[in-house]
């Protein structure tokens, strides 16, 4: 079992960095998805307003 032996601080740093970078890549994609989803909703809204305007 892991016993926090020699150079454990550097090992922890290496794994923390890996998690941070992988998490960063996932988070960046998730946030982009959310922003694009909001933009899509906005476009849908504008298109619906356009259609309503034409029908009137």
């Amino acid at each position, binding site marked *: 079992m892991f016993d926090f*032996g020699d*150079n*454990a601080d*550097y090992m922890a740093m290496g794994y923390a960095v890996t998690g941070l970078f992988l998490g960063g890549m996932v988070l960046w994609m998730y946030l*982009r*998805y959310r922003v694009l989803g909001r933009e899509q909703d906005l476009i849908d809204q504008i298109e619906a307003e356009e259609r309503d305007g034409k029908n009137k």
Partner: protein
Amino acid sequence: MTDYSPQRTKILQGVTIAAVVLFIIAIYLDLFWVGPEKTQGEAQRIFYVHLGSFLGSFISFGATVWAGFAYLRTRNVSWDIFGLANVEIGLGFAAITIVTGMTWARPIWNTWWTWEPRLTSVAIMWLAYAAYIMLRSGIEDPERRRRFAAVYGIVAFASVLFTIIIIRVRPDTIHPVVAGPTQADPEGGFSVTGRIRDTLFFNLFTFAVITVVLVWHRIRLENLSQQVQWRKIQVLSEL
């Protein structure tokens, strides 16, 4: 453009869950199952994610070459998106490789960074692909941008091959070689046997799966982005 079959989406969801589970198992193996190396202590455990992430960048940059040739042959925009997705994900993995290498080097080489052949070549590799992102965003004409990206993606792979080969041909490198011959006398090498070997292979497989999953999601994101752009232009032209 973003109407995917439910079956494909289910496969992507399945592979994503598999990647998360594999990553958790890999971390367990790295930190608990395999013991510390005799001379390097716990720092040696960095090696599993260091090599795994390098494999991820290698797969991604290799796929960019494939995408480049396929685009030049077919002029299909999907190949351009595939190439872009791979470069971005590859850059992320290459960054992990570099930074984990630095955290390993500090206790083993007594320095965070040294301009020895392997470290220099991997820095050049990272910069070459970072330039891909910057340069392609600077070209306005879409067809020219895609053609440039395809050619650049193929040529830039030379930096990856250079990074792999250099520690095997230069006698003045201190970077350890995991597999194959070397002319140098590296500092910090160790034998890859038993549990170390098993853990390494599991990590390599895990990082390969994570790479595929991230690239797949990035492709979908780019498709969605282009669809939104196209719809924006349409709406604005109608106003």
